[in-house]
């Protein structure tokens, strides 16, 4: 799989349309989930997903394989695009303990353990800092290891573990202080 991916990346950097399509079809769903979890808006997430791949295409000639999967580079681009989106929208993810709760829409998934809907959880994640959001989404939503997350966000594994702890601690506090339900 690694060699095949490298081959596609090489062909895509040379302008091969088929290789570009293969990479898009493989990684677009994961990038969409990542961006959606952080933004909360489907349309914006869809636009940003294609924008991430367009940016990746422009930067392909400069791409260097350094032992990381191609997806790690895409996640980096996606994280930068999300931060730019926040800046443009003049929204900075904060640890405001009294944010407005989103209306319950879609098909909420209520678990016995925590009685949290996915939407509530996602909203709570958007209240974290950008770095905490990245760690939470990459570690728990995408299922990446500490090492992979560290390489994507450009920090050490120890820093990722600390970010993970602080992110979960802050999430717990946010959810505890919401009016209905709690941990």
């Amino acid at each position, binding site marked *: 799989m690694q060699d095949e991916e490298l081959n596609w990346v090489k062909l895509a950097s040379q*302008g091969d*349309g088929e290789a*570009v*399509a293969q990479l*898009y*079809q493989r990684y*677009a*769903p994961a990038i*969409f*989930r990542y961006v*959606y*979890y952080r933004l909360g808006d*489907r349309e914006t997430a*869809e636009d940003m*997903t*294609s924008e991430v*791949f*367009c940016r990746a*295409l*422009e930067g392909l000639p400069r791409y260097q394989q350094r032992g990381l999967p191609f997806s790690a580079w895409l996640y980096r681009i996606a994280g930068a695009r999300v931060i730019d989106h926040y800046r443009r929208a003049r929204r900075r993810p904060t640890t405001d303990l009294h944010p407005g709760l989103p209306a319950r829409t*879609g098909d909420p*998934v209520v*678990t016995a*353990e*925590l009685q*949290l809907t*996915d939407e509530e*959880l*996602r909203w709570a*994640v958007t209240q974290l800092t950008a770095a905490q959001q990245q760690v*939470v989404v990459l*570690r*728990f*939503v995408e*299922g990446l290891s*500490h090492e992979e997350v560290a390489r994507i966000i450009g920090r050490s594994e*120890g820093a990722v*573990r*600390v970010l*993970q*702890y*602080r992110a*979960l*601690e802050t*999430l*717990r506090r946010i*959810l505890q202080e919401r009016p209905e339900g709690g*941990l």
Partner: protein
Amino acid sequence: MKAKRKADLLAERLAAPEVGAEEPSSPQSGAVEAELESLQLLARRLAATRLPELSSEAQVAGLVRVRETLHERRAARSRRGVWMWRLARTVLAVFLVLLFTATGTVWAAGGSLPGQVLYPLKRQVETARLSLTWRPFARSILLLSYANRRLDEVQAVCPSGNCPAGLLSDLETNVQEAETTIEQLPPGERTVPLEGMYRLTGRTEEILMQIIERAPAELRPALEVILERFRNRHNWADDALKQGRPAPTVTPTPSRRPTATWTPAVIPTNEPLEHWPAGIQPTDTPEPTAKPRRTSTPLPSPIPSTEPPTTTATLGPTLEPVSTPESPRLPPPTPTPTSPRLPPQTLTPVPPTSTPYPYP
């Protein structure tokens, strides 16, 4: 407990397969244990999040957008290629202009004289060209060519003998080096450079004699020394040519020098004029057929000598054997124009006379 320690403990718990399935490796206090357990539950809840998938329509739309970006990149690259081609074309044009300018400058320098701006460039080009010429034959021809140039310069810039420093010595140096190079050539390759040497030294003699005539008295001795050396070289070239030439088989011809072309068949002999081709007489002089040795003779004097002529050396372009008084060195019958090169001398038919040919 510090946050970093808690973070490490939490990471260990998260790496465990289930919450509470195993005893923790290092049991903690109750409060910490409760905290870690709740965070572990929250992490598990996050991992169980169901997110909407990228719809097929959105996926297709995204792929179309990515392909458009790819096409734009290709178009930009081709535009860049066109721009690069235009830049390369401009650079090439500038290079050609500079090349032609440099070539033109070098060509213009070829006619420059000592004291002119381009003269040093002319000499540098000669030096460079000589350094790249290593074959003896080509080197000898090149050295003779440069010696001819020096001679032209001498004739142009020092008609009165007051030559720029080093010009005459450069001339001698070129000739001497040519002589050395010719001597290293195999016999079969010597003819052409020897003929060139012969013509050059003969022409040098003529020009030097003109200069000596007009030179101040204090310069004449040095010029005469140089003249003598060139005479010796002229004799050497003549002897060398004779050694390599087969026995003459045709009737005499007027002269070996200076003709427009030299052909081995035109061999001077001692035949008197009567045996020469009818209606043809040499209008230029140099050597009589017997090729008398050039020896030290008095400078040209207007006073005719009563002795029979022993040489036909003349500085003029024409010779009238009937009326010209005999002297070893005849003054030029006509004014010699000052030019870098002597006019080519040709045979012109002269009506035969009854006067015997003056040369032995």
